[in-house]
């Protein structure tokens, strides 16, 4: 188990290294932040001064090495736009994204479980098809549109829920639902097909023959086996929720990581862009690692697979 863990961690580090190079190049390709930082009346001398002051005139390799060196100690540099340590900015925003992702994940699981199990059990019936369509709807509508419709009607006109910002638990509901609906579809389908397969298996047939109560068959035997891919995908989806909630964050004025990335890209703020992408990748890596461990614990065969 330990060897497995170590191998995985090393793999993650390699991945992060690759990403750090890619994002370094991409960030610098976005343009020159000086055009935004310096006023219109800036002279050539002002540009040169600013470049030197910000360390942007050093050779790229040197800039990259210094970036990586400091990143390893947790120093992500200073935001060119906000003139504050990037680490601080991320520290402010990341918890907001995490909290929203956790909330959305909870909502999705709460919805996906009954829907998925029920759809499998009542397969082929109108209930099954309705459940499928309702959940698939969540993946067939652009997120921002759902978000704006919710803001316009639920928040603005009917005034049932807050429209934006973070102000107590009720603020989580609309953005959480918007984010979560997308996930519900995926999880529900997984649960449904997983349950279908297991319900059809010898193991279950035997249990039924033995006269085990149908509810036990479903909830105890079948579900447990169907859980494995769900765990996998819950992990992946969670990572997606944290890292790609930028649309939801924009509509609901949620100060999270996605918004920070957007502002960083708009202002060509290299340190911010680099730091956010690396943080994102690190989160994905950690979540995947967790899922793999969980997985390996559940199914010992995995531990010894290639």
């Amino acid at each position: 188990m330990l060897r497995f863990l170590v191998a995985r961690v090393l793999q993650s580090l390699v991945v992060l290294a690759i990403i750090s190079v890619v994002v370094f190049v991409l960030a610098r390709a976005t343009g020159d932040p000086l055009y935004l930082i310096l006023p219109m009346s800036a002279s050539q001398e002002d540009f040169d001064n600013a470049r030197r002051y910000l360390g942007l005139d050093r050779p790229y390799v040197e800039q990259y090495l210094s970036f990586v060196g400091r990143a390893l100690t947790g120093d992500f540099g200073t935001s060119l736009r906000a003139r504050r340590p990037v680490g601080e900015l991320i520290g402010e925003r990341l918890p907001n994204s995490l909290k929203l992702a956790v909330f959305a994940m909870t909502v999705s699981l709460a919805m996906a479980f009954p829907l998925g199990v029920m759809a499998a059990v009542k397969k082929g019936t109108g209930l099954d098809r309705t459940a499928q369509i309702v959940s698939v709807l969540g993946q067939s509508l652009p997120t921002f549109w759902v978000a704006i419709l919710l803001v316009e009607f639920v928040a603005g006109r009917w005034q049932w829920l807050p429209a934006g910002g973070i102000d107590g638990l009720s603020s989580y509901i609309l953005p959480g639902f918007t984010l979560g609906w997308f996930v519900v579809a995926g999880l529900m389908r997984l649960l449904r097909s997983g349950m279908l397969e297991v319900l059809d298996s010898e193991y279950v047939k035997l249990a039924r023959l033995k006269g085990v109560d149908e509810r036990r068959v479903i909830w105890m035997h079948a579900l447990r086996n169907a859980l494995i891919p769900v765990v996998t995908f819950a992990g992946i989806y969670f990572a997606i929720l944290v890292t790609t909630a930028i649309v939801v964050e924009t509509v609901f004025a949620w100060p999270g990581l996605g918004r920070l990335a957007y502002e960083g890209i708009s202002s060509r703020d290299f340190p911010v862009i680099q730091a956010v992408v690396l943080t994102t990748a690190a989160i994905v890596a950690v979540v995947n690692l967790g899922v793999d461990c969980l997985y390996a614990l559940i199914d010992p065969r995995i531990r010894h697979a290639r």
Partner: protein
Amino acid sequence: MRRVSALVSVFVLILASLGLVLAGPGSAQPKTELTVALSSFSTEVLDPPLGGHLVKYYLSMMFDYLVGTTPDGQLSREGGLATRWESSPDFKRWTFYLRKGVKFHNGDEVTAEDVKFSIMRNIGKRSTTGYAGPLRTLIADIETPASDRVVIITKEPTLIIPTYLSRSLSTEGMITPKKYIESVGDDVFARKPIGSGPYRFVEQVTGSHIKLAAVDNHWRIGTPKYKTMTFRLVPEEATRIALLRRGEVDVVEVSRDRVKEVEKEGYPIHYRREEAILTMWWILGPDGRVGPSKDKRVREAMNLAIDRAEIAQSIFGGKAEPAAIPLGLSWSFKDVGFKQTPDMLYPYDPARAKKLLADAGLASGFNLDVYAYQLPGLPEGKTMAEAVAGYWEKVGIKTRLIPVDYPAFRKAWFDRSAPGMVGYFNIANRDWIGAYALLEKQAYSASKPSDTVNDAEIDGMLSQVMRQTDREKINTLMRGVYGRLRSEHLGVPVVYLHSPYATSKTLGSWNAGSVMYDLFFDVLASGK
């Protein structure tokens, strides 16, 4: 199976009741808190030399200016730290007499030393405000003969010092505490700013909000009506309007397209009339004008091809008026005695436009890239660019829309990498000194790379304005500049924009003012 259905129903009920229980009624704002929802902040740095681009209202609450203005932008002795000012006969020594007994939020008294320190810091190399450069070249020294007197000595005679250090332009005139900054340093100051304004800093969460709290009593506004002022960043308009409906915010920026909808529901709308001129220009080449726009007839044709009235009516919901002078900042017109006559307005004449193009040998048209982007205060930017491009297509010009964001356009403009191509900006309206400052940047060849005009005669006139202290002569020169900008078609003016701000129904009357990038919240909060 009943069990499953039951479980599902329970889940749904739980979620629903959670929502209702936690939501509660949309609480009406108690009158002691003012909340404002904006579409964008400036750089979000709360340090005057680094912030204040395009949005400075929260800074104007935290800091005092050396020279104040009325909401209409006129320099005023009531609104700033200087109770009066005068210049020497040669206009090279400007003396400011300071108000006594003003304190910073940390208790330190505001003295001439602070004023000198602030000005030098605001125009220093680190500064990113728009007018630091010219001030740096102009100011030779600052003396502090007494604790309530500041003398600014300039290298050349000039009239601009009080305006440049006032509220009407940017943040160069904001006064910051010398002792505090010198002891904690720039970074800590930006994080915990201290000023002498009617509201002090409480907290900032970048990307979310800035919160200020009132001081007990302030010379500017007496006892502030609102105990706290919060500025919230809400990028999406639907959300801003929803917040207004829910009573969570008191003032919102609303786009011209949706203003009718909000008005119909009874929310008072405050307009800043002619807040900005939306004007387009051709990007210059490294040595001047390049491509078909070099020909005066082409420039005129491109102006005639646009139906400004239609654009004002439809895209801007009637909250705009056709403009006639490129880079023409109308608030300066009366200052310099410039009269815009009806014949200066371009008629919508596509037939004549086509003829002019043919005369210029371009009957089969030519290729033109039009940059399309949104700007703060101009959510209609891309729509407008598309519409104008459409008008040009109708007279045979083959347009291509280049959707970018403003930084990308600014780069192309400054690099002169896309000569002959068209971009635009909604330039904030201002008085003659501010207008001169703008023309000096965008209509003056020596101001590479931001120049968009490149005309020798205008260069001559503007350089004389710089050295002039005789108002009559200045006015004549400025009138000449405006006249020539129009007669030579040195740009494509589109419309003057009125900007709507919707407020809650209980807010009361408010003069939001017409100062660049500023909204007079202190007037709203005034206890006088």
